[in-house]
């Protein structure tokens, strides 16, 4: 476990680069695994590889990892069994399950087995990165955070009130939840699919740029008339709420 992150260090993290993570990739396809290892390293994270379920399980049981990426179909021991065994053994490390099976039912099975998130192959690396970075944050119990602060933007989770520079901002309920999710993951990329799944609980491709329109509406409420934009578009990946342009 990392040191407990308090509110101020969260903002610090948001200002700079995300903290480095130690990731275990349990994936039997060597090329995919090495691509992930290389990409994670370039993103500033360290990744270990395991080629089958048994090796993966024994490595994961050491508990030194911040996030596990587990393929569903593995030799010797399948991915869901690995996750189940880990959870039974009291290992709480966040798990992202990768699978070629993309039905909502498959997803439900994956999450029921103890996975924290589920990603269908083929996926974009940026999507995977955004998701594991969001997962590593889960180590902090959400319920205890009563307030999100990014720059001069404040979201009060108790009164459901949002202010920027002390000025109240009126948001629709869905806009409030959108901003809440973005601020919870402040400093990190949040993809459109993550927003779709977590804010709306929809697990389909809306085909049009619905999410972009929702975000630009929200942006017009929180960034308009302010000199420094907080809600940024990350090209080819998604969105990020962050204090400072750099």
């Amino acid at each position, binding site marked *: 476990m990392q040191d407990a992150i308090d509110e101020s260090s969260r903002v610090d993290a948001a200002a700079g680069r995300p903290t480095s993570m130690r990731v275990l990739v349990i994936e039997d396809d060597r090329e995919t695994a090495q691509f992930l290892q290389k990409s994670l390293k370039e993103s500033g994270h360290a990744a270990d590889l395991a080629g089958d379920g048994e090796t993966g399980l024994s490595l994961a049981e050491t508990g030194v990892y911040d996030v596990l990426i587990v393929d569903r179909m593995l030799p010797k021991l399948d991915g869901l069994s690995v996750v189940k065994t880990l959870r039974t053994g009291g290992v709480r490390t966040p798990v992202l399950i990768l699978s070629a099976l*993309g*039905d*909502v*039912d498959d997803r439900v099975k994956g999450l029921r087995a103890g996975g924290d998130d589920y990603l*269908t192959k*083929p996926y*974009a690396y940026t999507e995977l990165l955004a998701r594991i970075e969001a997962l590593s944050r889960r180590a902090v119990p959400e319920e205890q955070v009563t307030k999100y602060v990014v720059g001069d933007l404040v979201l009060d989770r108790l009164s459901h009130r949002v202010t920027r520079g002390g000025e109240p901002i009126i948001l629709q309920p*869905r806009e409030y939840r959108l901003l809440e999710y973005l601020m919870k993951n402040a400093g990190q990329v949040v993809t459109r699919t993550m927003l779709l799944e977590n804010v*709306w609980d*929809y*697990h*389909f*491709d*809306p*085909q*049009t*740029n*619905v999410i972009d*329109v*929702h975000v630009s*509406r929200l942006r017009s409420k929180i960034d308009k008339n302010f000199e420094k934009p907080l809600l940024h578009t990350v090209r*080819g990946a998604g969105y990020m709420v962050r204090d400072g342009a750099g």
Partner: protein
Amino acid sequence: MTVLDRLGASAWTSTPFRLAALSIAAFLITAAGIVGFLFWQTNNLLTEQVLSGLRAEVQEMRHIEAAAGSASVAEAVKARARPEGPGLYFFADRTGRKRAGNLSRLPPELEGEGGGTFRYERQAGDQRLAVALPVLFPDGTRLLVGRDIEEQRVFANRMRTVFLLGFSLLSVAGLAGGLGAGRLLLNRIDQINAASRSIMAGDLTQRVPLAGSNDELDGLAQNLNMMLDRIEQLMSGLREVSDNIAHDLKTPLSRLRNRAEATLRDGGDCDAYRAGLERIIEEADELIKTFNAMLLVARLEAGALEGSTEAFDLGSLVRDVAEFYEPVSDEQGLELTVDVGDGPEIIANRHLVSQAVANLIDNAIKYGRPDAAGGAGKISVSLRPLNHVVEIIVADRGPGISADDRERALKRFVRLEASRTKPGTGLGLSLVSAVARLHHGTVRLEDNAPGLRAVLVLPLARQGTSA
């Protein structure tokens, strides 16, 4: 193998021959049993009659001997023994010499104590069958009392011949009749077989001929023909589906390839390559989306709902989806009106129903813009609960879909021409109709005069049933 052998082999393997042979065999065995029993009973009765006659006579002779001695026995034998009569006698003294009787000598078969059948010669060359009982008198003389049973033997022989002849005739006639009837049946089956073979060889348009007799075979042929109709439908459906898939995946694949080739050919600096690669990734993402949509439709077509359904408020689900799309329609200058209250509650797969409703609204936003410039675009979303079903109605004021294309638009993997120029997979309506089918519902496309009115009909939740 000779021709005869082959004929024999094919006759033996043919069903009618085997059936005829089997039934004839069963019939013959039963008949032989009955006739044999009758014969045996008759024979027994006749033999018993002869024997009881003999026994009575033996008794009589004993009485004569006891009363008047063996000399009077010899007198009695002389009186009874006529040369050609049925009664046969042989009376011998202690040494075995003949004293009286019409048998010339003691038959060698009866030299011992017991009686039985024997053969004797009445006239030269006239061998006959007889039966006799021996009597040994106390003074050592010996009498044999017999009866000629040659006529019974001849009768029995004739009976046997008649039976054998009858049975052979019966076997031949039965077999021939069975084979003939079987042949008729076999001819019909051969016709069906021949038709099936040419159909298996690939001619799916051929049908099994009907005899018009309305019998079981005609019924079989009719059922086969109906099955063939269904297979032909499925085959053409499959061909259409694979054509559509090929078309929908080939076009973006060749676009992807062209872009890669163009990037490579045009060369340029790092930025040019980067831009090219980014466009290729975009193209690949689109391809993956289309592929996923197809996979989902295919799975829905094949799938069952078990275990994935839950009860939820359809009204609030439809409102949420409409609210989700509201900013987009607003941005497109379309007015989205949602006239949906709470309820009804239905039992269904919530995710799939959300997706179906989303696809309908997405379609309305993409294609619902009026043709005439300046015409106000309006999309209305409403719910209409009926007796056993609930209708989700999404209507727009766009150009609509022509009556001819409406049915096609709901088919699997069909993209109407208009959808190829807009973003998205173009499989939205296919998916809606797959979701409807999975829930035992339907989709209707109607004329909104002007525009399109898409109606998704889902069954209402009933007590105690799930979907």
